[in-house]
């Protein structure tokens, strides 16, 4: 699966970010644009995603984590995710507050399942489903 970087309007010329559209818990009407972050261990989503999609956080592992320079309260539960035809289950840490525009895919929840080639020179991301 090959994806172009997302073009975004900036204060001047605009800029590009590598992201992929991920279907969460089978809700295919609105795949969530997720940034690929090789420096992040786990998948981090905004808490609002769990609330909007009625994902039960009861009994999830709780923690306080640092994201993008702030401390946020997080609850982790296993979630079924889909990218193209690839379906996998991985913990997602639902965070509040989440002052970010995108969700974030990390090592354990995404890169463990995919071989990923990022070509910033051509603004492309290629993901091949290869679960360990």
């Amino acid at each position: 699966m090959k994806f172009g970087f997302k073009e975004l309007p900036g204060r001047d010329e605009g800029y590009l970010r590598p992201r992929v559209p991920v279907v969460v818990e089978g809700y295919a009407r609105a795949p969530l644009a997720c940034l690929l972050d090789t420096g992040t261990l786990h998948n981090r989503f905004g808490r609002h995603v769990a609330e909007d999609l009625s994902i039960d956080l009861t009994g999830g592992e709780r923690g306080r984590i640092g994201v993008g320079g702030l401390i946020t309260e997080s609850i982790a539960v296993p979630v079924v995710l889909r990218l193209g035809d690839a379906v996998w289950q991985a913990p997602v840490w639902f965070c509040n507050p989440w002052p970010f525009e995108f969700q974030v895919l990390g090592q354990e929840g995404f890169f463990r399942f995919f071989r990923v080639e990022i070509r910033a020179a051509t603004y492309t991301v290629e993901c091949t489903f290869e679960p360990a």
Partner: protein
Amino acid sequence: MTTIVKGRIAGQPFALDADQVRQAVAGVLPEPLHEHYVVIDGRRFPPKQVIAAVTGLDRADFTTHQARRTLRRLGFLTGRRATPPPPPPPSRTDKSTWPHQGREAEALRPYMGKWVAQKGIEVLFAADTPGQIFDWLERNDQYADEMFKVPEPGSLAEGWTSKVDITRWP
């Protein structure tokens, strides 16, 4: 015995020895190599960088060939890279190389700070909250390619980490 090489570069007479050259570049970082290089104390330098450093001459005033010949006479190993370096990738600001030639960024510009449901590069619906997007898609039986919040200027996505203001968020 120290070899002193005398000659002229760019019309200027000079007398150099190898130690002078070593000292001139001892604390200098080698610049990116192009086609030719010279090895000094185990490091590869562009020959013109070395001659400029040791003589103070402007690089535009002499050729790579003159620089290599002088350094070879001083006993330094010179060489040519096996293949020329690849051309640099296109500039980030060259929108003709962007996935949508900048049209997507411009299509999103009116929605900065809003959540959007996007189909292709077209915005199907924009709202203040993701919940409103979900509601609209359900009510209108629509499917988006993806949903996200279009970053505002100075956002973290743009790279301005110091601009995050968590007090605006529940």
